[in-house]
């Protein structure tokens, strides 16, 4: 074997490792930036000292009770949404697939609204003005209902893809229809409840990274980590899926089982993310597309890079949402939609062609 041949391949792989390391660095930098953003002036040094156990009482309170839960939530939720988008795009053979474009988030949102209004799983805590927050009193119930809403949408999408062989465009149109149905359902839920509850649900649907406590963070972190392990374990199967289902089957991929399990896990992590922080659109759609430009369709790198990119995007969006009109915190769901929509339009203009 010629030495130069492997050298070229090794160099090519090294580039992908560098991208992965850069993404890890960006995530840490974004997390530090997010930890330092806020009304209390803390320097990077103060933050690092506090994180490593050397902070004073006030610094500990600010970092560990206020900012750190928000940073960890943004990171993990961003990762969960990006992972689900990345894998959905692969198994559905659809570059426009993500939890928000296929209606999974809206289904989960409806489920969570039902849990809050009818099963008493959430109550508004009036902390005053723009910072009033909703505390989820029964995270398990909200998670379960959100998951049922998300998985119901996923079942419809899978059914369409499997039995009708729909094109990517039709699948997204179906997603629009399902989203519309669940948005209508959520509106009806609001219509039949009292004013306080309406305010609660509306506020909840804006999306907020500040409402998840350590319990919720632990749940979503465990689920996202579990999903990541499954996705990463199947990275070669996803690579094979890129060549089409026939090629994948001929390479020994259990295609049907892979699609169902992957979609169920995608629905689970994106639904739980929606349940805890509300609807956050576009992160799932764009993270994988951004990373494809740097690491191609090699899922050995695309899966971890997309997850890191999702974390970075949501951390940066959160910083913008807190700093743009400080001290008012803009709703993160609205902000990601506002920033993500132009990119979505760009993808549509490009014809949604999968490379």
């Amino acid at each position, binding site marked *: 074997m010629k030495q130069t041949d492997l050298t070229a391949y090794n160099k090519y792989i090294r580039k992908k490792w560098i991208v992965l390391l850069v993404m890890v660095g960006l995530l840490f930098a974004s997390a530090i930036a997010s930890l330092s953003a806020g009304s209390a002036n803390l320097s990077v040094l103060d933050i690092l000292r506090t994180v490593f156990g050397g902070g004073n009482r006030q610094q500990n309170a600010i970092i560990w009770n206020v900012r750190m839960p928000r940073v960890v939530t943004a990171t993990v939720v961003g990762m969960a949404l990006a992972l689900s988008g990345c894998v959905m795009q692969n198994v559905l053979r659809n570059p426009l697939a993500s939890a928000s474009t296929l209606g999974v988030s809206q289904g989960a949102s409806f489920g969570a609204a039902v849990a809050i209004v009818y099963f008493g799983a959430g109550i508004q805590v009036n902390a005053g003005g723009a910072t009033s927050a909703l505390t989820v009193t029964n995270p398990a119930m909200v998670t379960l209902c959100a998951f049922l809403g998300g998985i119901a949408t996923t079942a419809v999408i899978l059914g369409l893809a499997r039995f009708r062989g729909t094109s990517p465009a039709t699948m997204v149109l179906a997603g629009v229809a399902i989203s519309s149905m669940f948005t209508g359902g959520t509106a009806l839920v609001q219509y039949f409840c009292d004013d306080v509850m309406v305010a609660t649900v509306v506020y909840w649907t804006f999306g907020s990274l500040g409402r998840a406590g350590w319990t919720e963070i632990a749940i979503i972190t465990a689920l996202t980590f579990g999903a990541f392990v499954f996705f990463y374990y199947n990275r070669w199967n996803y690579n094979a899926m890129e060549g089409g289902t026939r090629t994948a089957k001929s*390479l*020994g991929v259990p295609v049907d089982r892979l699609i169902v399990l992957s979609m169920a896990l995608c629905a689970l992590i994106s639904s739980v993310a929606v349940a805890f922080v509300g609807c956050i659109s576009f992160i799932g759609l764009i993270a994988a597309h951004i990373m494809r430009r740097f690491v191609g*369709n*090699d899922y050995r790198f695309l899966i971890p890079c997309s997850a890191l990119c999702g974390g970075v995007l949501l951390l940066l969006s959160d910083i913008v949402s807190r700093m743009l009109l400080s001290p008012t915190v803009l709703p993160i769901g609205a902000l990601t939609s506002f920033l993500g929509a132009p990119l979505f339009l760009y993808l549509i203009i490009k014809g949604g062609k999968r*490379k």
Partner: protein
Amino acid sequence: MIEIKDISFSYPDGDILKGVGFTAERGEVVGLLGNNGAGKSTLVTCLNRIRKPKSGSLTIDGKNAFQMTRNELARTVSYVAQKNELTHSTVFDCVLLGRKPYITWSVSQEDLDICTRIIERVGLLDFQMRYLDELSGGELQKVMLARALVAEPKLLLLDEPTSNLDPKNQYEMMALVQELAKEQGFTVITVIHDLNLALRFCDKFYFLKAGEGYSYGGIETVTAESLNDVYGIKARVLDIEGRKIVIME
């Protein structure tokens, strides 16, 4: 030796294959011939279990391929589809994917060595770090062939491997397949529409007519009569300089 016995396949609205079977030796190239809809592609996809046949068996060197695990079957039977979805990856990555049935956690040195050897063998060493969408149709088909070959199969299934190629590339592709089959000792079953290309490069010919085997054998089975019966065409089979060619009337 490859032994295909009594393969049947049907959709709810009718039978596609009815008790198809034949045998082939190592190194042989078998051409599957017949009209569109005769069941050629279905047969090929039944042989590697992309479709599940209603009945029948495939025995490779005495082992029932239909009882193999998914990975074992992928190591034994390779497949090149008629249409390949292009992904944004390099030639090397695409070929490396063919080693998937062998890869457990990470890529081994052996996987890399085999890929380089096959890429060199199909003449694409200078293109190995190029992206697939930068290749011509002929080069792309060679990449797909290389991807199938790195699994070191005993049976190679090709579904119209030359359908989108110009005459030069059709000839090169089939010559390469024939050469590699003899050199590495695997059997090839290929769906092929160009009768003259089949006559030039196939050792045996299996005629399928409406899902049933019409005839099987060497070049002597390709006659004006068999072509008329199977394709419904009037053609002459001529012997020119020791080679048979088909001329349509």
